[in-house]
């Protein structure tokens, strides 16, 4: 894999890499041994990278989550699963390429796999609609989840979308209804559901396949009620405050863990998943597998009760003991 496009905050690393390159060229040119300098520089690069990645702010994480060379859902499907068979279409309108779904094995377990897929170039992005699904994507996902229920296959959902698609056809075919129905039906689905936010968790479009018994999020992924840009446009009347909005929205994996919105953070290789697809997939695959084994052992009625309670508890409000009126 070629070196990923550096992000703005990775500039110090780029600068060190440039100097490393110079040392190497100098060494070749003059047939001199600069091994120790090379080694020192390489170590310095690693330390700098770690320093940067250990102190990422919310907006930097959003940029990593959106990195075009970050592993996408199908990269994980290819590496973590076997016997993948994509199953197309919602049997109502069409096949949403932004949401590939299918059947596959995770280790020895047969699963239903629901994904959001983004593209790396213009051609792919046109095909995948930038990872923004239409109603038929959500309805296909539900069709497959119900197939899973019928054949006792657990559901694994890999979330990576900027959001459900805001378009004319989307509204005409009731994107809101498609998401709402998924929220209700996932709450009742009589098989374990495991979700992982692997990149972007864009609001209702992400939640529409995210009502799960266990919700994981990658270290540098984000999950937000609104994009930082749109939040900035509304609250600051200007899209340039996206970084502040990202901070304010508490959308990072670490913040969401504190809010109990997610259940587990899955670590990424040093320097982000976009630098090491194989390693990232290995870590996620292990996390999916161990959680699936755990969920499969829980009796389904107990699991459904826990699923309900998990979402039921979310929210934060004050309730003074002396209210006027009865309590529900």
């Amino acid at each position, binding site marked *: 894999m070629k070196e990923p496009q550096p992000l703005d905050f990775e500039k110090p690393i780029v600068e060190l890499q440039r100097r490393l390159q110079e040392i190497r060229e100098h060494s070749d040119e003059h047939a001199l041994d600069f091994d120790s300098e090379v080694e020192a520089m390489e170590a310095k690069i690693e330390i700098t990278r770690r320093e940067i990645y250990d102190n990422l702010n919310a907006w930097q994480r959003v940029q990593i989550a959106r990195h075009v060379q970050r592993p996408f859902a199908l990269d994980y499907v290819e590496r973590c699963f076997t016997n993948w068979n994509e199953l197309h279409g919602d049997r109502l309108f069409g096949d949403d390429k932004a949401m590939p779904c299918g059947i596959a094995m995770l280790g020895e377990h047969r699963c239903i796999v629901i994904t959001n897929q983004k593209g790396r170039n213009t051609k792919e992005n046109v095909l995948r609609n930038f990872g923004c699904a239409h109603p038929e994507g959500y309805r296909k996902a539900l069709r497959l989840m119900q197939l899973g229920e019928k054949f006792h296959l657990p559901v694994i959902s890999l979330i990576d979308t900027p959001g*459900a698609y*805001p*378009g*004319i056809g*989307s*509204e*005409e075919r*009731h*994107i*809101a*209804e498609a*998401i*709402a*129905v998924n*929220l*209700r039906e996932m*709450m*009742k689905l009589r098989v374990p559901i495991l979700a992982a936010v692997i990149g972007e968790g864009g*609001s*209702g479009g992400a*939640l*529409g396949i*995210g*009502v799960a018994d266990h919700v994981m999020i990658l270290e540098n992924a984000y999950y*937000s*009620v*609104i994009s930082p840009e*749109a*939040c900035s446009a*509304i*609250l*600051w*009347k200007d899209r340039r405050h996206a970084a*502040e*909005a990202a*901070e*304010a*929205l*508490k*959308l990072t994996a670490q913040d*969401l863990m504190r*809010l109990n*919105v997610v259940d587990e953070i899955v670590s990424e290789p040093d320097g982000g998943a976009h630098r090491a697809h194989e390693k990232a997939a290995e870590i996620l695959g292990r996390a999916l597998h161990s959680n699936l084994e755990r969920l499969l052992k829980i009796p389904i009625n107990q699991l459904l009760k826990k699923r*309900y309670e998990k*979402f*039921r508890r*979310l*929210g*934060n*409000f*004050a*309730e*003074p003991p*002396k*209210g*006027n*009126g*009865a*309590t*529900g």
Partner: protein
Amino acid sequence: MAIFKKPPTGGGGGRKRRSDIPEGLFQKCPGCNEVVHEIELTENQRVCPHCDYHFSQSAKERIESLLDPGSFVEMDASLHSVDSLRFQGMATYKDRLKKYQESTGLIDAVLSGYGTLEGIRVAIAVMDFAFLAATMGSVVGERITRAIEYATTERIPIIIISASGGARMYEGMLSLMQMAKTSGALARHGEARLPYISILTNPTTAGVMASYASLGDIIVAEPKSMIGFAGPRVIKETTHQDLPKGFQTAEFLEEHGLIDQIVHRRKLRPKIAEFLRFLGPAAA
């Protein structure tokens, strides 16, 4: 998720409209430009007597016009929003809450409780657009969920009158999670085979539309209400397309198969009663 800065398609803001006319006495109808007196509006359930334009109603007015007089008992009235994210923006969440609490006399964007409608016991939750665009935060989600759970326990129908700009940004992901929470409560209410009537009013959008508002056994809408997921401006910017005529109106959505009926506000009470009597609570 799109959150509207102001109610689109000219509606919804009628109640607080500023103009040359002294506020609270006369209003210019956004539907027909006729000047309407406040008393006329009040007597006519805030519907324009000239053109049937539906001005927005407060949650309190809606409950008064829908339920049997004096039957409403409010539940969970003490629930207050808290600034759990310590939201830092142009204005703090606390200031926004305070401002809308003062301007509306409400604690948050929903009233919930139970009462009777033509003698039928119902649980009810009504959103009030005048409070922070009736965005759904933890309090809205919790009160709606409790109203649904109360209905499930009591084996009675639930009525939710929606209006909303969507999720409440100030509560971040806790706001989004209310979608799952309320939909989950409706799943249980539905499994108990109890009726849920969803009433959509101007405007109902985004996260609320993508959760309980779309899940009614029967979905009715007030005429000309703006109803949708994404805001029209966002759709235009994303697609670079002209929007179809009447896009995202109640009439458009009835035509496209989402809404069971468009019901004039004056007919809402007898119509809902008819639906409830017809469906009844199914035998357990």
